[in-house]
């Protein structure tokens, strides 16, 4: 069965430090992968997506993610975190069939300390 694991429930990073949020997926074929961010009280906003091609994808707000098939991972990174990046981050994989829903990880909450 398809699944997404985000091993870290909560991470705290100092402002200006680098960030890496981990995501592992279980999927038989080529996955379609997404990272979303949710600010408090808001819906989810798409940060970036991977379908094929270059395994390093760039997103909004200075985020990037690297797809590593051998490790079944799609980790999210940012070189320098800003206080406004404090939010909950979700990794997701598209289901098998066209029109089916995304399968989400349980999320990682990012806190930023000054």
């Amino acid at each position, binding site marked *: 069965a398809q699944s997404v694991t985000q091993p870290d*429930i909560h991470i705290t990073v100092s402002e200006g430090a680098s960030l890496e949020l981990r995501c592992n997926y279980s999927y038989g074929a080529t996955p*379609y992968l*997404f990272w*979303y961010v949710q600010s408090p*009280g*808001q*819906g*989810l*906003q*798409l940060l970036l*997506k991977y*379908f094929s091609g270059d395994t390093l994808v760039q997103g909004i707000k200075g985020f990037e993610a690297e797809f590593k098939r051998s490790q079944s991972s799609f980790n999210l990174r940012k070189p320098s975190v800003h206080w406004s990046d404090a939010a909950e981050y*979700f990794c997701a994989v*598209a*289901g098998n*069939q*066209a*029109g*089916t*829903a*995304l399968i*989400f*990880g*349980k*999320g990682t909450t990012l806190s930023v300390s000054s």
Partner: protein
Amino acid sequence: DVKVTQSSRYLVKRTGEKVFLECVQDMDHENMFWYRQDPGLGLRLIYFSYDVKMKEKGDIPEGYSVSREKKERFSLILESASTNQTSMYLCASSPPDRYAPQHFGDGTRLSIL
């Protein structure tokens, strides 16, 4: 930009009431989804629809139903609300392709007393 609008940001209802959560999208998307979000559990799919009058059960459909009479509108119905349905509810829409990202509304925080 795609706009997904959920009719209420906050809603308080009583046990046993029939509750309607409304969602409207303005991008002519075929697919629409209802998720429930609870702390530590992430997003769980309740129902989705890939066309008008079509619906499919998700992972946790019990106690819920949906209606899609028009392409732009997808309603979630709690037939007889219970306290364990207190949660954040998120609506999303997307084109039919697997690689198409979903666009989310701001959510409805529903409290059942």
